[in-house]
C-alpha cells in the first residue's frame, strides 16, 4: 500500500515496468497459453504452388482419422458467403479459395480435430489436385500486356491496382529542366517479414446459447478487427468480443485479419467448440503479410554548391495477390510522400503504382509507420549521392539543406505540416559524440593503407501518430484513439485504452501519464487494454501512434477528471472554484499553500462527500482526434569496417541521437530505440524475402530468414535531444519506429562511403558479403 508520501513518478521517470513481474515468472498469457474446456485444434493445408487451379479436394481419408471432426474448404465457406473477406485497403481477399490459389502457402483447407497432433496428421491425408498456372512474380512483367492475370475476379483486367501521386509535377519538372546538377538512383527496398518471435494465432469460442463469438487473437488492433468480423460474418458487433492477450511482438505483422482467424471462428460456429489455431513458423514466414517491396527510381535536382531543389520519384509497389496493406484508406502508398525528409526543397513529385503478383499480400509495416522507411531510405541515400557527386562532405550537405529550427511549423512540398524540429542540433550532437572529424581523419589514413572503413549518416524525419480525422481513416473509421479513466474511492485508478501493447510497456507508460495528470502514485494505477468488451474503441497500436493518439486521450481524460476534482476540492476547501490552482499535484487556494487537497482525498469525497451540484464518482473518457501528426526525428552515424577477404561488413560503432519530444519513460524509450535499430540493421545487412521464378518462397524458416543474434548486433549508443510537439497535450511524439526507419540508410551510406573512392555510388540492401566482395574484386582491392 502506498502512503501520502509515495512518489508520483509521472512524466520523465524510468519507472520499472508493471508488466515484467508476470513475464519474468513465465506467467505471461499469450494466445497459445489459453486452453478452454472442450477446445479443438485447427491445422491448415497450404498450396505448394504460387498459381494454380484447384481441380479436386478429397478429404475422405482425413475425415476417417479418429479425432478429426471437420474439414473446411472454400466451397463450404462460399455457401455461407464467407469465402472472401474485405481487406483494410478496400480490396477483397480469399479466406479459402474456391477453385484457385494465388500464392505459395495460401490456405487451401482446414482440419478441425480433438488434438493438435491429430490435426497435423490429418492435413497430410487431404488430397488436393492442382493444375499449375504460370505465376506472375516480377511486378514489371506483371504490367506487360500479355501477363497472366493474378486477379481475374476483378472487373479491371490488369495487374495494375492503383496509381497514386503527391506533390507538384509541373513545378518539379520545371526545376529539373533548369537544374545545375541532377543525380539519379534506382533503389530496391526488398520484401521483408516482421517475424515476431510469437507467431500469429487465435482461440475462437462461439457460445451458442448467448450467440456470442469470443476470439482471443494475436492482434494489434482488436476493435478494428471486431468491426471487420461483424461486417464479414453478419454477427452483431455486441455479440463479438475480441481479446488481445499478451502479444509476443507485433511490429505491424499482427494488424491484418488473416484467413486463419476467420476459419477458426467459422469452425467454432460449426462445431460448437472453442477452436485453437496457432501458426508454425513456416506458415508465418510464407503466408503472412510482408513489408516493403518497393522498386524506386529517384532523381534529385540541386545547385552546384549542393543546395537541394527538387525531388522526383517513381515507384512500383509489389502488393502481392491481395491489396491487404494496413494503411489509412486515403493513403494506398502510406505516408511515402514524407520523402522530402529533413530538407527544404522547392518542389517534389512522387508517384507510386501498386501491382498484383502471385505472392502473399504485401504492404504491412515492419516496425515502420506506413512506408516511411522506404521514403527515408530514398532521400537519405540521395543526399549522399549528391554529396558524393559534388565532392562534398555528406554532413555539410545535410547542414546546408536542413529545415531550420525557426522554420517550424514547416509545410513540405508534398503537403505535410511538420510540427517541430531542430535537425542541426541533433546532427551536431551525433557528430560530437562519435568524433566525426576524427573518424574522417582515421578513414583517410586507413584508405592510404588500403583498409576499408566507412562513415554513414542518416538524418531522418519520421511522421507518426495517425491521425487527424479529416484525413485519416481505416475502412471509414476515423483514426482517433481513446482512454477511459475511473478513479476509485480510495484513490486508485483503472485506465482503459484503445491501443494494444505488444511489448511497448503501455501498462507502465500510460499509468505514468495518469499519475502525472492526476497526482496519484503510478503504483496505484492499473492500465487495461485489449478486450473489446471493456476497453473504449480505438484503432490499435502500430505506426508509432499510441502515445500521440491514445496517450493524448489519456492526458485529456485525466484533465477532465481534474476539472471535476476541482469542484470537489473547492467544496472540501470551502473555497471558490476559481480561487484554486493545481500545483505540486494538488489543488491549493491561490496564495494559501497551506490550504490544499490532493487527489486521493478528492477521490474519496467524490463518493462520500460531493457537492450537491456535482454527480457522484470520478471518471472520464476521451476520444482524441489529433490536430496533426507528430514528426520525431534523429541523427544517426554509423561506422563500418569491411573485410577485404570476405566482403563482410562489421558495424564498429553506431550512434543514434533521437528526438521524440517529451519523454514519458526514458528507460522504455531507450529500449524502443535499441530494438528499432536492430530491426533497422537486419534488412540493411541480412534479411530479405525472395522468390524463384516458379513462385517458391526461399526463406521459409529461420534457417534462411536471418534474424540477427546478439553476435551480429552491435552495441548501440543512444542519446537524445528534446523538441516537444507543440500540439500534443504533453509534447510527446512517438518513438517505436524511428530507429527502424532511420538506421538502414546510415548503414548503407557507411558501406558506400567505405567504397566511394572506388567510384561506388550505391548498393541495394541487404548488403550481403557477396555483393560487397564482387565490388572489391571488380576494383582489384580484394585480399588475395
Amino acid at each position: 500500500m502506498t502512503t501520502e508520501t509515495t512518489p508520483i513518478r509521472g512524466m520523465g521517470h524510468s519507472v520499472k515496468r508493471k508488466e515484467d513481474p508476470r513475464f519474468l515468472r513465465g506467467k505471461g498469457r499469450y494466445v497459445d497459453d489459453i486452453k478452454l474446456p472442450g477446445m479443438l485444434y485447427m491445422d491448415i493445408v497450404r498450396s505448394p504452388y504460387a498459381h494454380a487451379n484447384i481441380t479436386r479436394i478429397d478429404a475422405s481419408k482425413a475425415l476417417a482419422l479418429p479425432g478429426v471432426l471437420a474439414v473446411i474448404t472454400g466451397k463450404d465457406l462460399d455457401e455461407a458467403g464467407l469465402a472472401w473477406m474485405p481487406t483494410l485497403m478496400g480490396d477483397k481477399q480469399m479466406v479459402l479459395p474456391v477453385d484457385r490459389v494465388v500464392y505459395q502457402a495460401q490456405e487451401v483447407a482446414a482440419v478441425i480435430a480433438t488434438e493438435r497432433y491429430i490435426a497435423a496428421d490429418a492435413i497430410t491425408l487431404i488430397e488436393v489436385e492442382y493444375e499449375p498456372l504460370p505465376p506472375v512474380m516480377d511486378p514489371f512483367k506483371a504490367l506487360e500486356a500479355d501477363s497472366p492475370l493474378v486477379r481475374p475476379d476483378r472487373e479491371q483486367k490488369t495487374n495494375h491496382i492503383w496509381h497514386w501521386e503527391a506533390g507538384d509535377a509541373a513545378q518539379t519538372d520545371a526545376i529539373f529542366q533548369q537544374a545545375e546538377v541532377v543525380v539519379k538512383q534506382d533503389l530496391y527496398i526488398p520484401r521483408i517479414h516482421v517475424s515476431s518471435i510469437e507467431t500469429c494465432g487465435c482461440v475462437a469460442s462461439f457460445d451458442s446459447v448467448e450467440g456470442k463469438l469470443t476470439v482471443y487473437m494475436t492482434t494489434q488492433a482488436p476493435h478494428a478487427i471486431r468491426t471487420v468480423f461483424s461486417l464479414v460474418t453478419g454477427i452483431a458487433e455486441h455479440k463479438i468480443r475480441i481479446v488481445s492477450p499478451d502479444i509476443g511482438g507485433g511490429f505491424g505483422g499482427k494488424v491484418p485479419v488473416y484467413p486463419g482467424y476467420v476459419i477458426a471462428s467459422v469452425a467454432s460456429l460449426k462445431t460448437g467448440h472453442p477452436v485453437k489455431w496457432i501458426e508454425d513458423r513456416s506458415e508465418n514466414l510464407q503466408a503472412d503479410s510482408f513489408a516493403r517491396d518497393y522498386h524506386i527510381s529517384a532523381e534529385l535536382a540541386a545547385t552546384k554548391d549542393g543546395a537541394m531543389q527538387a525531388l522526383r520519384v517513381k515507384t512500383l509497389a509489389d502488393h502481392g495477390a491481395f491489396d491487404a496493406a494496413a494503411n489509412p484508406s486515403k493513403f494506398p502508398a502510406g505516408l511515402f510522400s514524407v520523402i522530402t525528409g529533413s530538407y527544404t526543397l522547392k518542389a517534389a513529385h512522387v508517384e507510386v503504382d501498386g501491382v498484383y503478383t502471385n505472392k502473399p499480400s504485401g504492404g504491412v509495416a515492419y516496425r515502420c509507420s506506413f512506408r516511411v522507411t522506404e521514403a527515408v531510405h530514398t532521400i537519405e541515400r540521395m543526399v549522399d549521392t549528391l554529396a558524393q557527386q559534388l565532392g562534398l562532405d555528406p554532413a555539410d550537405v545535410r547542414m546546408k539543406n536542413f529545415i531550420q529550427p525557426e522554420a517550424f511549423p514547416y509545410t513540405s512540398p508534398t503537403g505535410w505540416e511538420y510540427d517541430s524540429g531542430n535537425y542541426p542540433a541533433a546532427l551536431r550532437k551525433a557528430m560530437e559524440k562519435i568524433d566525426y572529424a576524427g573518424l574522417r581523419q582515421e578513414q583517410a589514413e586507413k584508405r592510404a593503407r588500403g583498409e576499408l572503413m566507412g562513415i554513414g549518416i542518416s538524418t531522418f524525419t519520421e511522421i507518426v501518430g495517425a491521425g487527424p480525422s479529416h484525413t485519416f481513416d481505416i475502412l471509414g473509421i476515423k483514426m482517433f484513439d481513446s482512454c477511459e479513466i475511473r478513479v476509485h474511492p480510495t484513490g486508485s485508478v483503472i485506465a482503459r485504452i484503445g491501443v494494444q501493447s505488444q511489448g511497448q510497456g503501455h501498462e507502465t507508460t500510460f499509468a505514468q501519464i495518469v499519475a502525472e495528470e492526476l497526482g496519484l502514485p503510478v503504483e496505484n494505477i492499473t492500465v487495461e487494454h485489449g478486450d473489446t468488451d471493456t476497453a473504449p474503441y480505438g484503432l490499435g497500436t502500430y505506426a508509432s501512434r499510441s502515445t500521440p493518439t491514445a496517450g493524448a486521450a489519456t492526458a485529456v481524460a485525466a484533465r477532465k477528471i481534474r476539472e471535476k476534482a476541482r469542484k470537489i476540492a473547492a467544496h472540501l476547501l470551502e473555497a471558490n472554484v476559481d480561487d484554486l490552482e493545481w500545483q505540486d499535484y494538488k489543488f491549493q487556494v491561490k496564495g494559501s499553500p497551506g490550504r490544499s487537497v490532493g487527489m486521493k482525498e478528492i477521490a474519496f469525497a467524490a463518493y462520500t462527500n460531493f457537492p450537491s451540484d456535482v454527480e457522484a464518482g470520478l471518471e472520464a473518457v476521451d476520444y482524441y482526434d489529433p490536430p496533426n501528426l507528430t514528426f520525431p526525428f534523429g541523427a544517426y552515424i554509423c561506422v563500418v569496417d569491411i573485410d577485404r577477404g570476405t566482403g563482410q561488413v562489421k558495424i564498429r560503432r553506431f550512434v543514434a541521437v533521437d528526438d521524440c519530444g517529451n519523454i514519458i519513460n526514458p528507460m522504455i524509450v531507450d529500449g524502443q530505440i535499441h530494438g528499432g535499430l536492430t530491426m533497422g540493421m537486419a534488412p540493411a545487412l541480412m534479411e530479405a524475402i525472395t522468390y524463384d521464378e516458379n513462385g517458391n518462397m526461399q526463406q521459409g524458416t529461420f534457417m534462411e530468414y536471418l534474424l540477427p543474434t546478439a553476435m551480429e548486433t552491435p552495441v548501440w549508443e543512444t542519446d537524445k535531444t528534446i523538441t516537444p510537439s507543440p500540439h500534443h497535450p504533453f509534447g510527446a511524439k512517438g518513438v517505436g519506429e524511428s530507429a527502424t526507419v532511420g538506421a538502414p540508410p546510415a548503414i548503407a551510406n557507411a558501406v558506400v562511403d567505405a567504397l566511394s573512392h572506388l567510384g561506388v555510388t550505391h548498393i541495394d540492401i541487404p548488403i550481403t558479403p557477396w555483393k560487397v566482395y564482387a565490388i572489391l574484386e571488380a576494383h582489384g582491392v580484394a585480399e588475395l
Partner: protein
Amino acid sequence: MIPDNFSYLAPASLPEVWDALHEHPDDAKILAGGQSLIPLMKFRLANPAYLIDLRHVPDMDTLAERDGALVLGAMVREAALERSPLIQQRYPGIHDASAVVADPLVRNWATVGGNLAHADPANDHPAMMLALGARVVAQSPRGRRELSIDDFLVDTMETALQPDEVLVEIHVPQPAARSGSAYLKLERKVGDYAIAAVGVQLAFDGEVISHAGIGLTNVGPKAIRAQQAEAFLVGKQPSDETVREAARLAAQAADPTADLRGPVEYKRAIVRTLTARALRLAAQRATALA
C-alpha cells in the same frame, strides 16, 4: 510442426542396438543428439518408424588420448569438445569447429558422431576430420572395423556405414611435435551453416611443412579434401607466396553451387581467403606449441 508417429527404443547396450537395427532394417533411425534429425522429423522429411536412441548405451562418450590417438566416442557432445582443455590445447582445429557448430544450445545436445554420420556437407566436423586424417570406427555384430574419414564420407547424406553398423568412435592421430590445426568458417549469422569453411592441419620438420591436411565445408556434395593444395605445401616454408598458392589450389578443389549463401565464384573466393587465413593460423599455432 509435428512429427509422425514412431516407436522409441532406448537400448542399454550395443548388442541391443544391433538387435533393433536387425529387427527393423528399413525403417529405423539412430538418434544421437537429434539436432538435425528431429527438425527433419518435424517437417516430416524423415519419418522413421523406429527411433533408436544411443544415449543410454555405455562408453559412447570417451574423450581421451589412447595409443597414439585422440579417441572421441560418437556421443561426445559438441559442448564437451568446446570445453575440453585437451581439445583446446592439442587439437585446436577441432575446438574451432565445435565452437561454430550451430549455436551454444544446440551444441549441448549435438554430437560429433551425429555430425559425421549425418554426412551433411554443410556440417563442420567432416572437413576438419579430413584435415586431421581421422579414422572412424564402426561396430556391428560382424565385428569392428576402422575406416579412413575419406572412405567414410561417400556422398551427400551418405556414409560407408552398413545397415547393421553403428559409428562408435573417431580416432584422430595425435599431433606431431611441431604441428598446428585450425578451422575457419564464414557464416551469414551465428547458427548458420557455412557459406564455406576450411579446416587445416600443418606439421613441420624444422621450418618446412612435412605434412598438410586441408578439408573444405559446404562447397561440394560432401566435405572435400584439397589434395593438390596439400601436396603443394609439403616440403615448403609457409611463406606468403606459398600460402597464397595453396589457397588458390584449395579454391580450385571446391565445387560449390550457387544458393542463398552466395554465388559460385564468391564461395570459391571464400575458400581461398579462409584457406590462407587458416594456414597462417595453423602455422602460428605450430610455432607457439613448439
